[in-house]
């Protein structure tokens, strides 16, 4: 039984087909290997051959005597070839028993392809897509509001029974959203502070107003830049993670398992993430404020020759506590919208891997968009309030 010479069953000879005139009508001689590996190259040659064969009127004999290997794909092509000649006019010879079984099996299993359904025209299709898009927005707005309601209900319960807060998942989320994000957020803010200070110094110097760089950097970063950039970073970092986590749990029916056990997925999964993010984002915004002002101070010192003491003195005059609060007060609302959008997208994931990817992308895009919208609403509010 041991060591037969190695085999190479994938090495095959190309199939051939030929028409010969014979005594009783034409003879089509088929030889070589007719398998899925060999029929690709001859498919094109077979088309005119089949057309001629179909046009022929006399009796045709198919001689399969020279046939080598045959598999289901080869059998399918042969059956198509036989089908070109009316049954009464054709004879098939030279088929061995195994090939007969295979041909019968394939013939039995083959079906007519279903008639392609006629779809609607381009205009109707456009309208359908548009309608679907609109309804999608509506469905999603309702889902976000529904989740917000669920979160509010859970938070109310937690207020009545503080022990219901899932403390360990909450701390775990806080570490992942706040502590783990600190290095990248501070580094990014530091660089942004440097860039704003450098650009400001470059242009203010022309007017001899170098010192106003400090006012600009202070107000701009504290009120707007720090909180917006941090929120965008967090949306990309934590929002996508929320969607992917909840989405893959949804795909594996883990969410359904929670429900069946009698646990509320909103309480177990959404609230710890949402509350953690609402605490994390103001902290990160504060760190971002510090880092960008540090960056600005260094650039002012090195590039614009403003000593650190002068910078601090000027900053103290330019910004008040209120400026800082205007910026940081937006953070929890942005965190809320990021977490809600991300969790809603995660819970809408369906069975496929593609759906998970699409939902994650949508979560990031929509939450960044919503961050800008929230910022705009706050700008109007503060303008109206005269802050």
């Amino acid at each position: 039984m041991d060591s037969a010479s190695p085999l190479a069953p994938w090495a095959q000879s190309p199939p051939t087909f030929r028409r010969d005139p014979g005594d009783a009508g034409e003879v089509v001689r088929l030889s070589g290997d007719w398998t899925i590996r060999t029929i690709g190259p001859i498919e094109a040659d077979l088309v005119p051959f089949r057309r001629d064969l179909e046009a022929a009127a006399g009796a045709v004999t198919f001689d399969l005597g020279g046939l080598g290997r045959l598999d289901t794909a080869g059998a399918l092509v042969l059956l198509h070839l036989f089908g070109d000649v009316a049954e009464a006019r054709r004879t098939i010879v030279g088929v061995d028993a195994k090939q007969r079984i295979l041909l019968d099996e394939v013939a039995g299993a083959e079906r007519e392809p279903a008639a392609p359904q006629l779809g609607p025209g381009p205009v109707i299709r456009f309208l359908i897509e548009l309608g679907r898009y609109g309804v999608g927005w509506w469905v999603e707005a309702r889902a976000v509001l529904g989740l917000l309601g669920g979160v509010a209900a859970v938070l109310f319960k937690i207020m009545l029974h503080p022990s219901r807060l899932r403390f360990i998942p909450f701390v775990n989320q806080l570490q992942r959203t706040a502590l783990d994000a600190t290095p990248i957020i501070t580094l990014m803010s530091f660089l942004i502070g440097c860039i704003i200070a450098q650009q400001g110094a470059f242009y203010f110097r022309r007017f001899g107003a170098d010192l106003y760089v400090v006012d600009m950097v202070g107000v701009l970063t504290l009120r707007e830049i720090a909180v917006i950039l941090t929120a965008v970073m967090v949306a990309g970092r934590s929002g996508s993670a929320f969607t992917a986590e909840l989405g893959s749990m949804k795909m594996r029916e883990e969410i359904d398992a929670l429900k069946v056990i009698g646990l509320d997925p909103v309480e177990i999964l959404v609230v710890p993430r949402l509350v953690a993010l609402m605490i994390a984002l103001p902290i990160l915004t504060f760190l971002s404020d510090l880092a960008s002002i540090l960056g600005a101070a260094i650039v002012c010192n090195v590039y614009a020759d403003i000593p650190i003491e002068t910078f601090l003195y000027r900053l103290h005059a330019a910004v008040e506590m209120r400026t800082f609060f205007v910026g940081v007060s937006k953070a929890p609302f942005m965190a809320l919208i990021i977490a809600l959008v991300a969790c809603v997208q995660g819970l809408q994931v369906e069975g496929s891997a593609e759906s998970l990817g699409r939902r994650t992308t949508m979560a990031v895009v929509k939450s960044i968009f919503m961050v800008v919208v929230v910022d705009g609403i706050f700008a109007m509010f503060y303008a109206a309030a005269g802050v």
Partner: protein
Amino acid sequence: MSACAEGIAENEVIIRCRGVTVGFGERLILDGLDLDVRRGEILGFVGGSGTGKSVLMRTILGLNPLRGGTVEVFGHDLGAVDTATRAGIERCWGVLFQHGALFSSLTVLQNIQVPMREHLHLTQGLMDDLARLKIAMVGLPPDAADKFPSELSGGMIKRASLARALALDPAIVFLDEPTSGLDPIGAGDFDDLIAKLRDTLGLTVFMVTHDLDSLRSVCDRIAVLGNRRVLVEGPLATMLTFDDPWVKAYFRGTRARGLAAPAAE
């Protein structure tokens, strides 16, 4: 009578494992395992949970690294083959994974066409015909072709996955627990399907299974894995007389009551 299988003598060994040793970290899963799979047979491979049945299958397929020993397929040592031979061998086997492993973002029809598209140059029309043929051969309804895996039931996923495994008309099919999660009727149908495909296509089947009915109705030989190697191999009758506590409990336990009588017929 698959194309790959032709030219190999009946009963010739086409998978030969010698001294196969596989481990993860400190733990050895398989230690010096010997096993032969002969052409045209359905080999049932059984063993307790966690004994490494799937590990052996994955090792033969090259998904787990070998620590020692050799695996020969068609007489080629898989540890020493060149890439072209390896590619040739890979086109001659098909795998049904335990959970189907259908690509979730493709329809059933597209799933079946993936191996064809990747390895061959066929027209879309012929690929569609072939995929529909495979769908019919595994007993799926025609409208399953355009469904996504998430829209299929467990049994249909197994069938669709088998259709993908058969896409290139392989010589060897590896089945990892093909009937697990199916109802007894569905499992029986699946066994019949595998036996029919073996008879018509000349497949060699390596089946990891726990299903005693499959072992009785379709397997020609059974190999039992235990103590990191093959404890015993042979037909069902050998299993029923073999003296090992686990083998006894498995083949002569309460769940196996129906086994002895029909096998003795």
